[in-house]
């Protein structure tokens, strides 16, 4: 083979190699650009101000049991500790919205967002949820009660400065979450349907 043709072929091969490498590199970059980022945190208006370098602390969240109705079961999570009860409360509600990691039932519809959470000096936590909490709720009295007390018990049991919880929907008092339970007044913890580590007793039997 004449030498100039050999050089030409080698040159073409090199060009092709560079082209293919560039193509794959470009494709990788495009994929990185279009790849969806991590799921946005379930906050809408006010993300928590807890410092990412703050120490972690364990909390026990309560989710409706998938084995028995009228039962809430605990799951541990780590949250960033904060001096502000509202910042810890926001992380707790966000984790409840993210859902169970142990195949328990959802505490709230997964597309719910937390609009605001603040705690009054009297120990009342006001949890302001978007309308999806109500619109996309599966319904039924049992599930409604479980949703409410998942939030109430998770907050009151893990944040010492929270004694009662008022749930708002889209910034205002709602009649109910799913047509049954009165949301117009604050809820105190009700551990009668909650498994804290031992057995639970039925909350609603007279």
């Amino acid at each position: 083979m004449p030498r100039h043709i050999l050089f030409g072929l080698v040159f073409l091969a090199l060009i092709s190699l560079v082209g293919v490498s560039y193509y794959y590199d470009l494709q990788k970059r495009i994929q990185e650009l279009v790849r969806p980022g991590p799921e946005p945190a379930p906050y809408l208006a006010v993300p928590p101000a807890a410092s990412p370098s703050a120490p972690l602390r364990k909390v026990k969240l309560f989710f409706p049991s998938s084995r028995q109705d009228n039962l809430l079961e605990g799951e541990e999570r780590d949250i960033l500790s904060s001096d502000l009860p509202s910042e810890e409360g926001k992380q707790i509600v966000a984790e409840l919205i993210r859902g169970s990691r142990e195949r328990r039932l959802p505490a709230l519809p997964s597309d719910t967002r937390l609009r605001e959470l603040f705690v009054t000096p009297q120990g009342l936590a006001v949890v302001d949820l978007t309308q999806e909490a109500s619109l996309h709720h599966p319904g039924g009295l049992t599930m409604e009660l479980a949703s409410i007390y998942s939030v109430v018990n998770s907050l009151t049991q893990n944040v010492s400065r929270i004694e009662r919880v008022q749930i708002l929907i889209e910034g205002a008092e709602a009649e109910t979450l799913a047509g049954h339970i009165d949301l117009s007044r604050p809820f105190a913890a009700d551990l009668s349907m909650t498994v804290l580590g031992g057995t639970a007793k039925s909350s609603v039997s007279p």
Partner: protein
Amino acid sequence: MALLSAGVPADTGRFLIFHKQARKAIPKLSIGLQTYLPVIDLLHVLELPYSESVSAGFVQITKGKNRLRLEKDDSQVVLNDRKIALSAPVTVVKNQWVVPLDFVRKALDRAFDEKIAMSASGSAAAVGESDFIRLNARLVETNHALRLQASRSVAAEVRQQGLRIVFAFGNTPVEFAGSEGIQRAEWIRSLALDQSESANQLVIELADNVRIAKISHLASQNAYTVEVNRQEGAEAKPDAPAELPHPAIEAWKWRHITVDAGHGGPDRGVAIRENVFEKDVALAIARKLRWALETRLGVPVVLSRAEDQAQRLEDRIAAANLARSNLFISIHTGNAPGSPAAHSYAYTARWIIDESSAGETKNARSLFVPWWEAQRNSLAWSERLAECVQAEMNRALNGGHPLTFRRTPLKLLSALAMPAVLVEIGNARVPDFQAKMESEPFQNLVAATLAAAVERFRFLHERP
């Protein structure tokens, strides 16, 4: 309470807000000598995000980094930890948050990104404006001309409608500052600023004995002039007196049962399966129960909703209480994904005990029962009714299981002033039960079971 005792709240017209090239009006209230505005309406117009709770006694407005917090019966509001004193306390009237008029200027203006100007009369506010354009009217040219002087440049659309001249200012915030010598001019019948959602105009009505000669716009002087020539004319006819409406007379119904089909309209309740919802099954059972009760007991039955329509719980409560129903049964279907059983339960009211309301309730009980606890006086009978319903359901629907009724903080039941139960039929998450819920024989069985329970209860209730 001190505030309410100062006077009965009275509607005193509308408060106009100029915002984003539009005009919106909200009601104004007068309590004693103070003028109040409904703050939630105001925030909606200004598109400000807020959280509020009447029972917890606060409103919090969040705008960027600013947080403005209002507490019930407190004449101070807190803007980012800074207290601002108002002329009167924030309060709640007819379940509506109201704030004194100076809240707009003293508090909201500081929390809002844009400047909010108030008219001198206190009847309007303008967002994004430093002040209102002030209009002054005075007679000139030996009293045959009227000069409208604006405090700054203003463009009006001038319309002449017979002896009526209209200066329309669109969405420009203007206010009428006063007049000089108008009272002496017999040819001017009236001069008034007409401001509402539909109009923002100065209207001049002329007497019949004049003819408009010229209307000029003196742009460099921010003024308009109206010149007239005198003529002879006729007087206007007096207005006819308005007819007074006759009050409606409502006939009272006596001794009947209310059967309530849960949910309705866009509130579909539990999705039993595709295109089958709790609201439909509940309505079907409610209709059958009406027939069963009327034929079995001979008692008239009222359905709280007779078709697929949205109805608020408070409206259902009000209708039953107002009609003085003797018994209330609400029909729902169950949804318990955590349970493999399809048991039916009866529910009665329960109240959430918290320290803030406990004292209130105790005090109130000595004189009156709070409306949201109207059920307390009937609770013992409601529980007897629930026992009857649960016993019949255990026999006919629960396979003989000795289940007990449940107590839950139900919005619907807690405010009813008669024996009342809510029943939840089965479990929509149990596959066999989904088809059963739709079937006519099953719905008839549920209706017959509940009718039997009511019959059993009536025997107890009427026994001396």
